């Protein structure tokens, strides 16, 4: 009896002590869809978390849970974080959208930030990066680099963000190489190295000599390297360890400035629910160094495109563009509005295959 009573009171004392400490620190929670060591998507979010720690030092405490399945399980993780006194919680995958909204309802005093979603509430912000701007640059390089004119694309889930990326890459590959053809494989996972490697190998077997991926691990890079003559692009993170070939460039997500700004807003009490969607210009989307495997003129063209997008003089979705079924989408010179982009559920003309519904 004595021992249990002792233990219980000790635990209570500990609990009280940590609660007391937590009060003068801003506690920031992160929910990750993959492991922090995935070398891609989650890795970059974790870099953002570390940047928050660095920026605020003792004033902030960060916690994270990795490899949280999308769906109901994530709700449990978020609830736990909120109960443990988190002031601000970043949920970093599309599939956390409804769970985030549900948990946010139960904890009106906790601020939530959901990445890549579109549902907001008084205490739920959304944020995302305009990855399609980077995809446009990748597509340009890919269109030039392919010799077989077959580009393989590993999609994760058929959600607007991924579809947007495929469209942006295709439009710009087609622009520089009218014969280009996209083969798309849906992996239905964000992170499964074996499956991603298999998908890459299958695409290579079927003639693709450029692989674009919208999954989080570096496995497709390794598969391309084994094949020897296949070009890849880093996804979410630089994946520089596979450079200068097969990885010839990359899209880098840079979340650190946003995470720091939002944490600061919570500290200052100025946090409000917003919808942030930043691209190359503010630096949320970075283009990793284009390696020497890319011919100089192609590199120059890609960099010029990047500059044009950053300065705002060019939008990756500029008409004339048609939808896959041949119906008109954008007239010549017209630019896609954010609403259409955010909910994009169609392929542009020229892409083959159906989007899984």
């Amino acid at each position, binding site marked *: 009896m004595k021992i249990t009573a002792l233990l219980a009171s000790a635990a209570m004392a500990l609990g009280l002590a940590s609660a007391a400490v937590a009060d003068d620190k801003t506690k920031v929670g992160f929910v990750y869809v993959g492991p922090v*060591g995935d070398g891609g998507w989650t890795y970059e979010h974790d870099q953002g978390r570390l940047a928050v720690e660095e920026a605020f030092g003792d004033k902030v405490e960060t916690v994270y849970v990795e*490899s949280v399945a999308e769906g109901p399980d994530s709700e449990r993780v978020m609830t736990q974080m909120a109960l443990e006194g988190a002031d601000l919680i970043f949920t970093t995958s599309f599939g956390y959208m409804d769970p985030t909204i549900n948990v946010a309802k139960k904890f009106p005093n906790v601020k939530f930030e959901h990445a890549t979603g579109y549902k907001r509430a008084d205490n739920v912000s959304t944020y995302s990066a305009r990855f399609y701007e980077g995809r446009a640059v990748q597509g340009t390089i890919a269109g030039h680099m392919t010799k077989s004119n077959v580009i393989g694309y590993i999609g994760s889930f058929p959600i607007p963000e991924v579809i947007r990326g495929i469209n942006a890459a295709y439009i710009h590959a087609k622009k520089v190489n009218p014969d280009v053809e996209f083969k798309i494989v849906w992996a239905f996972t964000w*992170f*499964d190295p074996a499956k991603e490697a298999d*998908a890459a190998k299958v695409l290579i*077997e*079927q003639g693709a000599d450029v692989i674009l991926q919208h999954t989080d*691990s570096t496995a497709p890079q*390794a598969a391309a390297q084994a094949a020897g003559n296949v070009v890849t692009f880093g996804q979410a993170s630089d994946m520089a360890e596979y450079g200068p070939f097969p990885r010839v460039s990359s899209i880098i997500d840079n979340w650190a400035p946003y995470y720091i700004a939002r944490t600061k807003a919570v500290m200052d009490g100025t946090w409000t629910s917003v919808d942030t969607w930043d691209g190359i210009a503010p630096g949320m989307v970075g283009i990793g160094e284009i390696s020497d495997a890319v011919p100089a003129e192609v590199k120059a063209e890609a960099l010029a495109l990047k500059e044009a997008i950053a300065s705002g003089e060019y939008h990756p979705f500029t008409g004339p563009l048609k939808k896959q079924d041949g119906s008109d989408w954008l007239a010549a010179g017209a630019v896609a509005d954010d609403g259409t982009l955010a909910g994009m559920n169609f392929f542009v003309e020229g892409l083959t295959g159906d989007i899984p519904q």
Partner: protein
Amino acid sequence: MDLSAINPVQLIAFLMVAATPVLLAAIGELVVEKSGVLNLGVEGMMITGAIAGFAATVESGSPAVGFVAAAFAGALLSCLFVVLTQFALANQVASGLALTLFGLGLSALMGQTYVGVKPPATGKVDIPVLSDLPVVGPILFNHDLMVYFGIALVAATWAVLKYTRAGLILRAVGENHDAAHALGYKVVRIRILAILFGGACAGLGGAYISLIRVPQWTEGMTAGVGWIALALVVFASWKPWRALLGAYLFGGVTVVQLNLQAAGVAIPVEYLAMSPYLITIVVLVILSADKSSAPAALGRIFHASR
């Protein structure tokens, strides 16, 4: 739709590679379960084998050393399960689950410095004339050693279980440990050996993923293969050749569905994505309609005094 883009020969060759990790893990678990022990820690032992094999290969430069290290690491982790279930008589289901969670964490810790490192390539067995044969060559004679090892292991396991005295004793322990004990067989010792064998096989399967199939190290890279291996053992009704069939079926349909997708076949992707699981389950359920059932003492705790 362009089915001509799919090369059936490469498809079959690729299938054998895709099936090898799950096959190795399943055959190890089959022996464990035949001895009457249910070890749900396959996933944990696989991922530990994956990082141990990867690290050893990177440090030594030799994939052979890596595979030996992976088998050793898998067996070593299963020692924990041995201590818990055979000596402390803990619940096997709970211990196995704990082993999986522990293995996932341990591997992440061990692998921290190996993220993004590239392993030395594992050579293929290149049998001069034979591997140049059309059709048969790429399918049968142009693989890495582990593919052959997996098949040989199935054959050996089958032969040992069916024809040898050792196999008979193992099965006796799994069917009725009290009777086996009464006959003077060392139940605990036999089970420990079976568990270690299972751990070594799982470790090899994991290393196959990190060294050959992917090849690189990423946290959580086995992504559920261990659980599929566990399911496979049950659906294969504890028969080695059926486990091989199930593994190839599973690997095959996985590869085929990716190929179909890339070729632009108009079957909804969701059906394709679930097809490996569905077809493997259906076929093995039909096969297991005969009288064979689980080892009678599966999952039961043995203590000589009871």
